[in-house]
């Protein structure tokens, strides 16, 4: 499964943002000139290649930040570690697949349908199930979401089989434009990154500038006193989960357009999300974005050195941050 995913990523990376070798455009020059300039051109080519890798890493980092934002939100508001987060991303991808199949919508437009569906699932899930697990003990919610993860994976397997699926978004999938000489940017990865930045920015504003966010922060600070303000914890938590799964829906659609997916890929997305949260710290949503980008760039660099090192490089970057700055790069300021 892993090998197929990598090869798919590598091939899409090449087709969408290939390094246009510099020497080709200059090869009509004389033999003599080519020889004298060859080392310079080679250096230039290598530089272009690395710039390209880092840009690709940054762009995929936006996706990781979206995985992470939902996790961070839930943990921040109700101290719930949602083990099923990755599988909910995959569920969103399948809902997008069904929506675009039945309604004939472009997958990117399917977001409009998938977001409210996932938000409703989130609200219902929290009210009906997860609220009952919350208490002084952190273990019950952990076990219940773990069970939920297994259930979602198997339900998806039952309905959609283990076949690898993909959402077809049309010409936008392979569209790209040159950023500079030798560096091409895929329109889809760029769109995904811009959406991620907008989502993170909107979350930041929502959290720190609106009554909604105030209620989240107050409940996070002190649940029992928040109730004295007329805030119903069960409702606030359900709203937080709805918001988390709305972000999951956006991430799920992008992952479904970008790579192949099957019912078993959820846990790996969960790990990426966790790593981005921990690298970024819980202080701000922008930290989460930074965490996603650092993870994405590390993976891209690892993959460049050796295709088998993509995940390893991400995990190493994560371990490095955990060892040197366990509170993350943008920690929560203690009052």
């Amino acid at each position, binding site marked *: 499964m892993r090998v197929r995913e990598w090869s798919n990523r590598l091939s899409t990376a090449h087709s969408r943002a290939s390094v246009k070798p510099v020497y080709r455009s200059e090869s009509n020059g004389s033999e003599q000139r080519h020889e004298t300039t060859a080392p310079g051109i080679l250096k230039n080519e290598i530089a272009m290649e690395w710039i390209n890798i880092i840009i690709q890493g940054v762009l995929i980092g936006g996706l990781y930040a979206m995985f992470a934002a939902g996790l961070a939100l839930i943990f921040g508001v109700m101290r719930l570690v949602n083990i099923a987060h990755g599988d909910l991303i995959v569920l969103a991808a399948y809902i997008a697949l069904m929506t675009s199949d039945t309604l004939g919508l472009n997958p990117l437009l399917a977001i409009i349908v998938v977001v409210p569906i996932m938000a409703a699932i989130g609200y219902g899930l929290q009210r009906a199930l997860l609220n009952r697990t919350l208490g002084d003990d952190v273990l019950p919610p952990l076990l219940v979401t773990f069970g939920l993860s297994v259930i979602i994976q198997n339900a998806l397997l039952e309905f959609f089989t283990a076949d690898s699926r993909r959402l077809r978004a049309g010409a936008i999938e392979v569209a790209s434009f040159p950023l500079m000489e030798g560096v091409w940017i895929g329109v889809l990865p760029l769109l995904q990154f811009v959406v991620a930045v907008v989502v993170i920015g909107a979350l930041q504003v929502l959290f720190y500038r609106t*009554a909604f966010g*105030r*209620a989240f*922060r*107050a409940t*996070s*600070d*002190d649940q*029992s*006193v*928040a*109730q*004295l*303000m*007329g*805030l*119903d*914890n069960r409702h606030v938590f359900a709203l937080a989960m709805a918001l988390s799964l709305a972000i999951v829906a956006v991430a799920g659609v992008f992952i479904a357009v970008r790579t192949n997916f099957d019912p078993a890929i959820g846990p790996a997305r969960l790990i990426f999300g966790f790593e981005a949260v921990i690298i970024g710290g819980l202080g701000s949503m922008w930290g989460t974005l930074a965490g996603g980008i650092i993870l994405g760039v590390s993976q891209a660099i690892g993959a460049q050195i050796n295709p088998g090192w993509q995940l390893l490089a991400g995990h190493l970057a994560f371990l490095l941050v955990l060892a040197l700055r366990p509170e993350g790069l943008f920690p929560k300021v203690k*009052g």
Partner: protein
Amino acid sequence: MPEPLLDLRALDAFYGDFQALFGISLDVAAGEVVAVIGANGAGKSTLLKCIAGVIASRHEAILFDGEPIGDVPAHAVVARGIALVPEGRHLFSSLSVEENLLIGGQLGRPGPWRLSRVYELFPALCERRHAPSTLLSGGEQQMVAIGRALMSNPKLLLCDEISLGLAPIVVRELYARLPSILAEGSSLVIVEQDIVQALKAANRVYCLQEGRVALTGSAATLTREAISAAYFGV
């Protein structure tokens, strides 16, 4: 006699198997200040928590505005017009002063208390409105806690030990604001360790001892001897 605003009828309260209150009967008329005094562990805070809905009790044990609210959860009790200033203030540490006040008013109950009116009552808070609530002095924090409760425009304000840990001059200043709060139409229940302060501020006093009402009467007529007898159970 008009129906009391708050009427407790044989209220019992439990923490698990431990019974903290035994058959408390207490009433508060509209516009009245009632002080609840007693030694540590007498059940004063528990009593306020029951009224505010933090601790659930028997449906009929608490009547507010003639309606039973004993088993109504805390967030719905606020909506009916009872606000609690919790012991130890418990401000939201990641919210600024103004955000703390705003969240108190988030239900949007109509009434005289809004941000500007709270700042009028506590001018010190207006200057520090954007400061994190944790950077305030104890007295200022207590003002925020009271202001936050007022923002819900309560008919009944419950104050749990507002003098706790504060300098006497600050306590006097806080108590000096109570008449303005009464004037806006709220009734008050104050729980206080500081008996002198409580007697001065209150119309009537209830003295609790080991979860039972040991003494009750008007603040003006109770003798010090009667109070210390009820307080210490001698």
